[in-house]
């Protein structure tokens, strides 16, 4: 039965991937992309990667869909001219041959993977006690490979700076997105008042259980970001101007705490991002708690895009 479910997943994943590529209307293609993310979530679960499934559920099925939907709506007038530029048949055939060759190469690699598979699971199991956390993924993210996680937080921040730097001069330092037009007392406003309290509890809970069970700061932060976006979509609160001090502090706070604790480790434990004996768990909790709001604000502002208006603009 497990194979039947996998086969169903594989078939549907391929069908939706083809659909997102061949659909003539970009909106139609994007409507395929949201369920595609949900199918991937199931695929991660089938591969017993529950933490990854949670991240995919929050980001792939949630935020990416919203990002693409909004962009597709803005870019609708450009679709017809783009279709006219479709490459000719020889290019397409050549591209198909190259792509098929690449796919065949990867497929061959998958079939020829070494047996028994190399694994670091026993090494993680041996050393996890030193971190004090129970979830091996969190132990890897926050202790064994903490540098990757720090760099990732910084990359997100750099991505946001990249997005902001696309602002027109006139709107520099202003508020992202169009001014809210939605009536705050509509049905959407109702949802945006009822759901966020629950969503915030869920987000913090996901961070909290992440110490011992699947979950963690990225998944929790994405849920929090989505709740904030919902409030903005409903017109209850406007997006903040990006030059506000609290925005800057919220963005930089998490990575700054992470780096500070890393430097502390360099002094006390003899290695950058090393944790002193016995203090690993509390320090990991502090870093995760500091990263949660920073990641949430970064993800939400990445989605709202570059500043487009100053206060006082019409």
């Amino acid at each position, binding site marked *: 039965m497990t194979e039947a479910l996998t086969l169903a997943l594989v078939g549907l994943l391929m069908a939706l991937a083809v659909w997102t590529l061949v659909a003539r209307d970009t909106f139609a293609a994007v409507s395929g992309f949201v369920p595609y993310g949900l199918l991937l979530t199931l695929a991660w679960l089938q591969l*017993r990667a*529950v933490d990854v499934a*949670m991240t995919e559920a929050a980001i792939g099925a*949630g935020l990416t869909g919203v990002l693409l939907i909004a962009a597709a*709506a803005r870019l609708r007038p450009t679709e017809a001219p783009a279709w006219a530029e479709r490459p000719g048949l020889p290019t397409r055939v050549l591209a198909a041959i190259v792509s098929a060759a690449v796919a065949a190469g990867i497929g061959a690699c998958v079939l020829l993977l070494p047996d028994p598979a190399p694994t670091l699971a026993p090494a993680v199991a041996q050393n996890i006690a030193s971190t004090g956390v129970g979830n091996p993924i969190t132990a890897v993210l926050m202790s064994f490979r903490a540098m990757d996680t720090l760099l990732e937080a910084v990359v997100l921040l750099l991505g946001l700076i990249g997005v902001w730097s696309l602002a027109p001069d006139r709107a520099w330092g202003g508020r992202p997105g169009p001014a809210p037009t939605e009536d705050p007392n509509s049905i*959407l406003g109702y949802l945006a008042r009822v759901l966020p309290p629950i969503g915030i509890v869920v987000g913090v809970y996901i961070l909290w259980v992440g110490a011992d069970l699947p979950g963690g700061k990225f998944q929790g932060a*994405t849920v929090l970001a989505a709740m904030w976006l919902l409030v903005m*979509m409903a017109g209850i609160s406007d997006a903040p101007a990006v030059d506000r001090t609290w925005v800057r502090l919220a963005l930089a706070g998490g990575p700054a705490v992470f780096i500070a604790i890393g430097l502390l480790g360099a002094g006390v434990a003899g290695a950058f991002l090393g944790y002193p004996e016995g203090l690993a768990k509390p320090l990991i909790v502090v870093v995760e708690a500091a990263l949660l709001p920073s990641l949430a604000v970064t993800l939400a502002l990445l989605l709202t895009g570059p500043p487009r208006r100053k206060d006082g603009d019409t």
Partner: protein
Amino acid sequence: MTEFLLGASAFVLLTVAAGLVCILRGPDDVDRMMSVQLFGTAGIAALLLLGAAIGAAAVVDLALILAVLAAFAALAFVKAGVRPGADPAEPEDRA
């Protein structure tokens, strides 16, 4: 029991996905959106069934994330100006 839960998961997934694939081709954006919404619910059901079958207790938390975000994509569609019968050449300026 495990076999039944896996079978039920595959059944729910395939049923709703078959509908999805049919409707994605259709001309109307609203129908596409409703089909995506239905698939979101069915995906949560399939996920819960699969999680119960493989004994992954954390799948409830995973479903919780999906449930919190369940309305998100559909709301983005409406905000982006998907209107029934709206002329695609006239995009709403509210993306």
